[in-house]
């Protein structure tokens, strides 16, 4: 195992993050704060409790998930797409490193960035609403699994993308709607039965439900089902990445 290479990729990506700290941190924090102001304070004050939790607090896990998922995808996809775009990808292909090490470096960095942003939003939330975390360790595990699995997904996206438009299209047209419709701002039980059934096909429902359980001890789906769903998603992403490097699809002629 070439740990030095993994560390080099990881640190190189993290330096990029800190070099553009305003863009990396401030943007998600400001947009999330606006969500709290609008949904938590303005609208939330007129909504009764959901699942026994004040609405302002109820949306905290969903908002963290929304940001963490989009940031994991964006950071990982950009991290691997940018070397392709500017032509420095040859360095990775000609270095004595395996696909696993490349993935660990890029996905590790993307997951770390998303985790940092997730924690900053968690801290920001305390300024707007009162809440406590029922299962802190479980919250940490869910956050970690989510960042890693969606960073893996972002990595696939970055390999697949042939231009910046393609890089944006999947997060914009598929991921963001899935997160919004995955119970970020409401409980699935609030939906009519038909839409509850439809929602069960949305993988993000399981993540948000599990994450919310870690906060408030209430969930739309059993916690083990949530863990299984995220494990399955991670497994699928890993299999696709393994296939990409085995065949050289979109990376090696």
């Amino acid at each position: 195992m070439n740990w030095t290479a993994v560390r080099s990729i990881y640190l190189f990506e993290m330096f990029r993050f800190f070099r553009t700290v305003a863009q990396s941190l401030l943007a998600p924090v400001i947009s999330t704060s606006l969500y709290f102001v609008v949904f938590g304070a303005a609208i939330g004050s007129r909504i009764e409790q959901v699942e026994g939790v004040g609405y302002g607090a109820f949306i905290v896990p969903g908002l963290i998930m929304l940001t963490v998922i989009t940031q994991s995808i964006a950071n990982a996809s950009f991290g691997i797409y940018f070397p392709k775009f500017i032509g420095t990808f040859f360095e990775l292909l000609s270095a004595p490193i395996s696909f696993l090490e490349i993935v660990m470096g890029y996905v590790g960095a993307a997951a770390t960035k998303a985790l940092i942003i997730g924690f900053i939003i968690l801290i920001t939330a305390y300024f707007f609403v009162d809440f406590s975390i029922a299962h802190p360790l479980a919250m940490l595990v869910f956050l970690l699994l989510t960042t890693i699995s969606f960073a893996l997904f972002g990595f696939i996206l970055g390999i697949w993308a042939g231009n910046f438009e393609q890089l944006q299209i999947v997060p914009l047209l598929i991921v963001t709607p899935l997160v919004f419709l995955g119970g970020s701002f409401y409980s699935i039980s609030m939906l009519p039965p038909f839409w509850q059934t439809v929602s069960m096909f949305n993988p993000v429902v399981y993540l948000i439900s599990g994450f919310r359980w870690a906060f408030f001890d209430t969930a739309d789906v059993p916690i083990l089902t949530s863990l299984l769903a995220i494990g399955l998603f991670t497994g699928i992403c890993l299999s696709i990445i393994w296939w990409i490097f085995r065949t050289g699809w979109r990376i090696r002629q």
Partner: protein
Amino acid sequence: MANIVEITDLRKSYKDGFQALKGVNLGIEEGEILALLGPNGAGKTTLISTVCGITMPTSGTVTVGGHDILHDYRAARSMIGLVPQEINLEPFERVINTVRFSRGLFGKSSDDAAIEKVLRQLSLWDKKDNQIRELSGGMKRRVLIAKALAHDPRVLFLDEPTAGVDVELRKDMWQIVGKLKEDGVTIILTTHYIEEAEAIADRVGVIAHGELLLVEEKAKLMAHMGQKELEVQLTETLTEVPKNLRSEDLELSSDGHALIYTYDTNAERTGITKLLADVAAEGLVLRDVVTRQSSLEDIFVNLVKEDAA
């Protein structure tokens, strides 16, 4: 001297059926500078990319330092440095960070002394904290070389290192290559510029249409294949070659003031004595006699022409 790179029957075909490499066999000796000459699309970059792991070979084997590039890729690639044709660098990154990154990719710890040595060697130390975008084109090329040398490779591939750079920078680059050779680095460079191969290479390979047409020591190549021209300058102007002198090796210069005789330096008889005697017998008065050695460029052009035919 032992071969540090051994290429055997290397073939590369693309999905559209195009054969970029058609069974290339090549041994590269440790410590030499090998120049690969070839026209655009000859297969030079494909050959380098395949050895370096960027392109997958269709068949054939390549070993670097005895390590197979596919089965023992870590050991093989550890010995290789690659300077690509295009200036591919992250514009906002600092020089020292990008060199450190390259060193790390090859599993070497961030040794500040080693990085400083490489940067000083390439006159980049003063620019170490500059962002890449702030550098001139020549400096960027140096950064590419610094990145390729950051892990102390034993074999360095330079893919058209002086393409599009001015004469001064080109000569500067040749000096760098010369110093690297002194340090024992084996260098393989592809180039369009014959003068580059002529100036710095120990051996020259000519590649065209995916085939290696020849690999020869530069001096031997020019001696073996070089033809010489004898220009017999006359005091009078001729309109055609005199009847008694006519042969396929003799032609009249465009201004009619000279007879140009092409001969093989390795032939047992060059025919010069007979020619000069015949010229005198014809009553022509000589003003001067000049000889010219054909250049590597002439040899290259002839080889590629023959291959196309």
